[in-house]
Structures are given as structure tokens and as C-alpha cells.
């Protein structure tokens, strides 16, 4: 009886009695959910285009955030250890390789091999000059962000060459395991380059608390969460336009629909993969920056991948709207359960609760909320 009351009665009583607190929790859940969706989005993009279940998405977010912090600190002229220097060099080298890659990616740029070397020197030199001049932050931050984006594109190119291309036509589980291996590599390399201590990521996002006044009480919302939500929404809109209106976007959708048919009408599959992984890398960067700004850049950042997985099965592996709606559902239900049903479970449920929510949905729709209908044939 007590159990039933704790399960069905008292939480709702609490919600009713404290509407302001309920709204606060609800909003907090929504805003967290937005971040989950952002990570899930990266998964969906890659799964749709290449059928790879990319477990490295979370580590990619960590890697991007680490690179951003590293670049920024370097240009701000902060402490420079040997690791930092090596890190800068490696990033520059990766960027140079990436420029070579861009040349291959169908005339987006016409960089030649020697120019890539030049690009390498340019990146290092540029960062060095910025470092010695000592510009204010609001100029450095865009440079660091652009640098990180280029790094992520280069990374996508490298992944395509080194992992995806040799594993073409393998079974899905093999591809999945290779992304796990990739996650190990990125984690190790990221830590090697930039050190494994917790870093503070400050790119000028507001950190104050916004107070919304209602007749029934005040609702506190962190401004950072609001910014994150706005950025995520913008990201989704940009992606939607990119997918629906541009030439590359149409090619991407064609590949997602049917690899063979897309290839037969002359869409270069390898190029598409690089682009998809780049986009996923940039999405990962946004997620990493948002998450890193609120809780610091550290290893645990890569664990947001594990939070995004239930979102993914809830929404369906192949559905972008599914990732967004799923993220919101998971975010809200998780926060509400954490706060209002606390007496029942005693906390720390955020690791598994989302999975059970997703499982409950899956029992009714095995392909997720918005996933494609699974048709089975003999």
C-alpha cells in the first residue's frame, strides 16, 4: 500500500502542490533532453548514411571539446607543456591531411599536396602569431571554433580512409566494434595530447540564472541551458535546410535511402561518408561545447553517448525527428522521475532509467517511435 502510494499518489501531490518547482524540473528536463537529442542526432546521421552504429560519437564530442579548449588555451598564451606543443602540431598535421582530403572530396577546394604542407605551417604559424599578439577572447574564440571544425572534418576523412573503407561490406557488428576501437583511439589520443585533467571551457556563454516570475512562484532556469536549447534548435534547422535544399543534402538522402541505387546514379559513396562523418563531428562538437561549458571538459563527457543510446532506440535509429522527440521525452521523464519519485528509489537512477523508458516504448513499437517499419522477408 505504501509502495503504491509512493508510486502513484505522493509524486503527483508534490507536483500539484509546488507548480513552480514542477515547471522548473520540467524545463530543466526539456533542456537536458535537447542536449541528448543533439548527440543522438550525430548517431542518426551516420547510421542513416552508412549503416554504421557509431559508438565513438560521445568520444568525438569529448575530442572536439578537448581540441577547442587546447587551441583556445594555446592562443591565449596559457601554460604550455610539451604535450600542448605536440598537441598543436598533431592538430595542424591532421588539418593539413584534411585539406588534402578536401581536395579529394570533389573540388570543394583545390588544395594540392604541397599546399597541405603550407596549410600545416600556416595553422601553426597563425596560432603562434595570435598567441604572441595576445588578442582579446571574442576574436580568438571564433578562430578556435573554426580550427576545431576543420579538425573534425579532417578526422572524418581519416576515419573514412583508415576504418570505413577497408571494412566496406562487413557485417554490422564488425563495423560497430570498429567504432568501439575508434573510441579507444580517440580517447587515448585526446588525453595524450591535451592531458586528462578537468578543463574549464569558457567561450563566453552566459552562466547566470534566469528567474521567470509566475503568480504561483519563481522558476529558476540556467541561461546556459537556454543557450544550449537555442543552439540545438538552430543546429536542427540548419541541418534540415542542408538536407532538403542543397545538392549534397539530396545526395545524402539518396544514399540513406538506398546505397546501390545512389551509386548507380553516380553519387560518390565515399565522399558522402566523409561529409556525413564531418557533419556528425560538428554536431558532436556543439554537443561537447555545450556539455563542457556547464560541467567542464573531462573524460565523463564521452559518457553522454550512453545517455543518447536510449534516445536513439526510442526515436528509431533512422529518424531525425525521432532523435529530437526522443531526447525530449527521455530528458523530461528522467528529471521528473529523479526528483519526484526520489523516495522510492533513493537517487542515482539516471544511468538506467532512460533505458527502461525506451524499453517500454519499444514493446509497442519495436522500430522506435519514428523508425521505418521493419519488413521481414524470407
Amino acid at each position: 500500500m505504501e509502495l503504491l502510494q509512493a508510486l502513484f499518489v505522493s509524486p503527483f501531490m508534490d507536483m500539484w502542490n509546488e507548480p513552480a518547482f514542477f515547471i522548473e524540473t520540467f524545463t530543466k528536463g526539456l533542456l537536458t533532453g535537447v542536449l541528448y537529442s543533439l548527440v543522438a542526432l550525430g548517431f542518426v546521421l551516420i547510421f542513416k548514411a552508412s549503416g554504421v552504429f557509431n559508438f565513438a560519437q560521445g568520444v568525438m564530442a569529448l575530442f572536439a571539446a578537448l581540441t577547442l579548449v587546447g587551441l583556445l588555451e594555446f592562443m591565449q598564451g596559457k601554460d604550455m607543456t610539451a604535450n600542448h606543443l605536440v598537441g598543436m602540431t598533431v592538430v595542424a598535421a591532421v588539418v593539413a591531411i584534411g585539406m588534402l582530403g578536401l581536395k579529394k572530396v570533389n573540388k570543394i577546394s583545390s588544395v594540392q599536396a604541397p599546399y597541405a604542407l603550407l596549410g600545416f605551417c600556416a595553422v601553426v604559424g597563425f596560432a603562434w602569431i595570435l598567441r604572441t599578439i595576445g588578442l582579446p577572447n571574442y576574436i580568438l574564440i571564433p578562430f578556435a571554433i573554426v580550427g576545431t571544425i576543420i579538425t573534425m572534418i579532417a578526422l572524418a576523412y581519416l576515419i573514412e580512409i583508415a576504418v570505413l573503407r577497408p571494412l566496406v561490406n562487413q557485417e554490422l557488428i564488425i563495423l560497430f566494434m570498429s567504432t568501439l576501437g575508434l573510441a579507444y583511439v580517440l580517447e587515448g589520443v585526446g588525453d595524450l595530447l591535451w592531458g586528462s585533467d578537468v578543463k574549464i571551457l569558457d567561450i563566453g556563454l552566459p552562466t547566470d540564472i534566469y528567474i521567470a516570475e509566475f503568480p504561483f512562484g519563481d522558476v529558476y532556469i540556467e541561461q546556459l541551458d537556454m543557450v544550449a536549447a537555442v543552439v540545438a534548435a538552430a543546429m536542427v534547422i540548419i541541418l534540415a535546410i542542408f538536407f532538403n535544399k542543397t545538392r549534397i543534402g539530396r545526395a545524402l538522402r539518396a544514399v540513406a535511402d538506398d546505397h546501390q541505387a545512389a551509386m548507380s546514379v553516380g553519387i560518390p559513396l565515399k565522399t558522402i561518408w566523409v561529409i556525413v562523418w564531418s557533419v556528425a563531428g560538428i554536431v558532436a562538437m556543439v554537443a561537447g561545447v555545450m556539455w563542457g561549458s556547464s560541467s567542464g571538459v573531462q573524460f565523463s563527457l564521452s559518457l553522454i553517448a550512453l545517455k543518447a543510446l536510449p534516445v536513439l532506440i526510442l526515436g528509431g535509429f533512422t529518424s531525425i525527428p525521432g532523435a529530437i522527440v526522443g531526447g525530449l521525452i527521455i530528458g523530461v521523464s528522467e528529471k521528473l522521475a529523479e526528483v519526484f519519485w526520489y523516495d522510492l528509489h533513493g537517487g542515482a537512477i539516471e544511468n538506467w532509467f532512460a533505458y527502461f523508458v525506451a524499453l517500454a516504448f519499444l514493446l509497442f513499437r519495436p522500430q522506435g517511435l519514428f523508425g521505418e517499419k521493419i519488413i521481414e522477408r524470407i
Partner: protein
Amino acid sequence: MFYRESGQFKSSYAKDQAIFPIRQDQIAIVLILAVAFLVVPWFVNDYWSKSVLQPFLVFSIAAIGLNILVGYCGQISLGTGGFMAVGAYASYKIMTSFPDMPIVLVIILSGFCAAGVGILFGLPSLRIKGFYLAVATLASQFFLIWMFNKVPWFHNYTMSQITVPPREFLGVTVTSSSAGPAAQYLFCLGFVVVGAWLAKNLVRGRTGRSWMAIRDMDIAAELIGIRPLQTKLLAFAISSFYIGISGALIFCVYLGTVEASEAFDINQSFLVLFMIIIGGLGSILGSFLGAGFMILMPIVLKNIMVGSFGMAAVTAKHIEISLMGVLIVFFLIVEPHGFARLWQILKEKLRLWPFPY
């Protein structure tokens, strides 16, 4: 020249169905068992027993278990760590509740506990498939670990860490820190040999064939009269049984003291999955090879980097992680079917060697 089955005629059904039909294999297996049971215990010291042989043996059992589920029945599971924890905590509860129960029985019973939990978490497999199922099994991983940390009954109302009491097998202490390295090694080895023998016979019999039918195409299997419900749940049960026994051995013998969130976290699940992928899906031998590789590789890498090059431990750890990743990707590219396939190729070559034509 040496590995050739010509002239070995099978004159009875029993001979044809033998577990190792080829004479050379029989000799090899007897030799390996003789060395493992009679020679190694004399030479094994604490370091070898604790950091090489015991992890290899207990993870081999886990790998066989997961291979039954993933390799033979085709249901991807990422909940291995959770089921190991069930085995470990079940053995702890049984041991502390019934102090007189023989240790072997305790470990087998905890295997059955894990099998029960495995059936429970295998239920979604009837409705969802592929990666949806893989992610769904993560639920068991996170939920079970949380439960063992949160519910005080599981660790007898003390701290969340559990420690094994000393127990004897045939008059020799095998659990807790007072046990000798050889005794612990032999104790694990016994479980491994019996487990592998049972598994090998299971997968080449009727059960194993129905698993493989489900793996290859479940609808077709259903049409020819294999019941998906029973078959899938049986695979989950037996797989979890092995994994539970491995978890119980990890707790009782190998580690002695465990905390659920550290000893059985999600990395263990991935580790065992790596073992069977690199060793070879759908192969008992592959489970052993994969376990050996994944256990030995970090030790070798660490010894080379810290021992030979004198690196700082932290840097070495990071390099080790990235190298592991690189090696995994490398092996997947070179031989996606794992060591078991390499061994098969080698056998084909050996059959003709040294005159391939």
C-alpha cells in the same frame, strides 16, 4: 605432413561423432590438458597466477557464454558486466547465508541465478532485434549495477564492497587471499575445462543447431518448426549461466574483493565482446584465443612501455588505450572472422604442407 587425417577411418557412429575426430587433435588436446593440469601448477607463481592465468581462465568462460548468445544465436548483448555481477553477488549471498555449502555448488548455484536474470532480460529479444536489442541489453547492465550498489541486502548491510570468506575445496583453500596460486589456478581450470566441454557438445547438437538456425534467419527457422521463444530464451539462460559462473569466479577466486560499479562496469561488457569478435564469432576455440589476446595484450604493452622505455605510468596508460583501439581496428580489417578463422586457414595449409600440390 604431420597434420593429415588420411588413413584414419571412422568405423562406428560413435567415432564419427567424437568431439575431436582427428587423431592429431586428440593428441594435442591431451597434451595441452596434461601440461595445464600437471606441469603448470608446479611452476606457477603469484604474479602469473593472478595477473595472467586466472583472468585468462575466468574471462574464457565469460567469452564462451557470450559467444553462445552472440556467435551462435545471433542476439547481440552488451549486458555481460551486469550478468557477471549477478553471479558474483549471488555467490556472496549464498556463501554468507549457508556457510557450510561446498564452494563448487555455490558457484554453480550462482550460475543458475544469473541464468534466471538472463531469461528476464532476454525477454525483449522476442520483440526487438539487432542493435535495438543491443541497446536494450545495456539496460540490464546499468540497472543491475545500480541495484547491487543501492540495495543493502545484496552486500549484507555493510559497505557496497563485498569480500569473499575463505572456503576449501578438497581440503585446500581456494578463495580469499590465503589461497595458494596453484590451487586457485587449478580450481578455475576445472571450471573452464568442464564448461568448454559442455559448451562444445551443446553447440554441435540439436540445441546448437536450432540456435544457429535462429541466427541465420529467424523467420525461416520458425517456419521449419524451431520455436523462437524457447530457443532464444535458452540461449540467454545458458549464456548467462556461463557468464554468471565467470562472475562468481572473478569474485571468489580472481579478485576476492569487488565493488559492482568498478569490477563489472560497461567496459567489462565491451572487453568480453571484443574477445569473441577478435577470437571468432561462433567458435569455442575462438573464445579462448580472444580471451588470451585481450588479456595478454595490455600486459605486454604495459611491460614494453613502462619496463623497456621507462615511460610515466599515466602516459603509458593513454598510449596503451590508443594502441588497443588501433590493434582492434587493425585485426577487424585484417581478419573480420577472428583468430578462429586464422587457425582454420592454418589447418588447411598444414594438411598439405610441405607439398601443396
